[in-house]
């Protein structure tokens, strides 16, 4: 039976009783507090730095054009004429189209996953849908250029133009790269966010609410539409804003299918541009201070927009969590 002299351990430990400064330091409390604090504060500094750099580099454009920059549509780098309107327009149109498709699709799927599907199936399908969110933007772009655009050109747009071609939004020649294509790609990219958040919000609606409606003789759909959805509406709005913020900032997939033409057009089928796309395309080759500054000014606008929309989303989602608690 192995024993250790009991006093050895007690004595060794007791000898450490006198805690000098170095010994306390070795305990690590002060150091680890300091280091983790520094890391946390450095994040604040990084974000501050981001805002500062964007603002600093936008000043030239702002000084030259003022707020008119955002309302002008001329974009001629060679003549040093810059206006952000075509890009703001394109960002808005493509995002709006994307949301138009993604929201009904996403909410409907969330309803199915939250209300209809048995839990195991729901979890598996949600897992797969969340994988969609993990696919890199450039892969969506690849599929967009080589698969989606030809399909649209051959099978989708002709029937639309045949029947509704008189409408301004469907007018003009469709060469493939367009607002329309970008909108569709965006819708696929943001729908997983809507589904993921909406599903959770729907599942959080207390089961008593559903039971009350069903006990009165409502059908499952009526219960969902009249009772569950309104209960979850704040959270669903939150998910929509989250998705919108993503759509606004989406770069690669959009620039690969939108056509990269700084035009404003009433037709969805015409080529266009977006803020993120023009930066991606032209920044590396931009020469001249004003050129670069204009691109960065638009980046600042994009930055501000996404922050505001994300904040709104968060308010919506936090309100839902408060209600459910």
């Amino acid at each position, binding site marked *: 039976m192995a024993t250790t002299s009991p006093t050895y351990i007690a004595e060794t430990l007791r000898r450490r009783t006198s805690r000098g400064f170095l010994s306390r330091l070795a305990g690590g409390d002060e150091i680890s*507090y300091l280091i*983790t604090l520094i890391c946390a504060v450095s994040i604040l500094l990084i974000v501050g730095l981001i805002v500062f750099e964007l603002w600093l580099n936008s000043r030239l454009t702002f000084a030259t054009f003022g707020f008119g920059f955002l309302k002008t549509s001329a974009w001629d780098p060679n003549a040093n004429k810059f206006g952000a309107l075509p890009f703001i327009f394109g960002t808005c149109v493509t995002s709006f189209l994307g949301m138009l498709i993604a929201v009904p699709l996403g909410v409907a799927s969330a309803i199915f996953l939250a209300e209809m599907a048995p839990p195991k199936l729901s979890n598996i399908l949600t897992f797969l849908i969340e994988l*969609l969110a993990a696919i890199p933007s450039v892969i969506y772009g690849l599929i967009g250029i080589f698969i989606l655009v030809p399909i649209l050109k051959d099978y989708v747009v002709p029937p639309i133009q045949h029947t509704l071609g008189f409408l301004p939004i469907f007018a003009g020649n469709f060469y493939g790269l367009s607002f329309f294509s970008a909108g569709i790609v965006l819708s696929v990219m943001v729908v997983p966010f809507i589904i993921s958040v909406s599903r959770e919000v729907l599942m959080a609606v207390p089961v008593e609410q559903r039971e009350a409606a069903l006990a009165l003789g409502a*059908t499952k759909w009526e219960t969902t539409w009249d009772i569950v959805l309104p209960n979850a509406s704040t959270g669903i709005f939150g998910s929509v804003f989250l998705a919108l913020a993503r759509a606004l900032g989406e770069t690669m997939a959009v620039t690969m299918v939108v056509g990269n033409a700084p035009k404003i057009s009433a037709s969805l089928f015409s080529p266009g541009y977006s803020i993120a796309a023009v930066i991606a395309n032209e920044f590396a080759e931009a020469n001249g201070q004003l050129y670069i500054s204009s691109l960065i000014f638009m980046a600042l606008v994009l930055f501000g927009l996404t922050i505001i929309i994300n904040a709104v989303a968060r308010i919506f989602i936090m309100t839902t969590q408060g209600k459910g608690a």
Partner: protein
Amino acid sequence: MMEISATRRFVNTFMLSLSGVCTVAVVSVLFFILGYLLFHGAASLNWDFFTKLPKPSGETGGGMANAIVGSGKVLLLATLIGVPIGFLAGVFLAEYSGKTFAFLIRYVVDLLNGVPSIVIGIVAYALVVRPMKHYSTLAGGVALGIMMIPIAVRTTEEFLRAVPNSIREGAMALGATKAKTVFTVVIPAAISGLVSGMMLNLARVAGETAPLLFTALGNQFWSAGWLAPIATLPVMIYNYAISPEEDLHQQAWAAGFVLLALVLIINVTARLIIARGASAQRR
């Protein structure tokens, strides 16, 4: 006794089926994408792809060896820059911070998470490329590193908080300082979640293209050291896809397949580890 009207019954069945159709449509997109990439990409995959450098414009053949290594280098740098800061900040939030300060940090971290990646690229350009007067691996690493911070913070805080307080008390009752408790007991207890979170973080950033377009830029050849422009997989895919040459399109598919396979494998593995950890805790 009122019987439920046929219209109501019809609407019920129709709308619920419609919702199912929508779900199937969304899920099938995933399989379409996987399918197309498998079909177009795997076919173009050959040994050259992994070992050869790109050929000059006009010539066919060549590969993306430099882009594969390049992505590895940039991601390594990004991890070294972003993960320690994010991890330690997460430790601060979970173990040391007071309530108001924690709220502020979390808000700012979420804000950073929502910044479009191209904007981060611009900032990295302003901070690294402009002073150095050339593009570099370093700039790309900085851009992606900044992007890794928010998820590192959130994951760390979440998994550390999930460790029960009784474990912390047990360690402190033995005479461990708070720091020793955190680093020798709490963090090891949360390790599987922390690692999987890091894997998800890496997978997300591995596919990013936009911030690299004007930081790491690109390179037809090998890039030595950390201060030269460097080729990366996503940027190569983009450049080849928009080029007019059919041969390059094929290579873009192949590269896309490799990138997607990598990203999805890391993702699925990490999520399974987390799911297994969660169900083990519930036992």
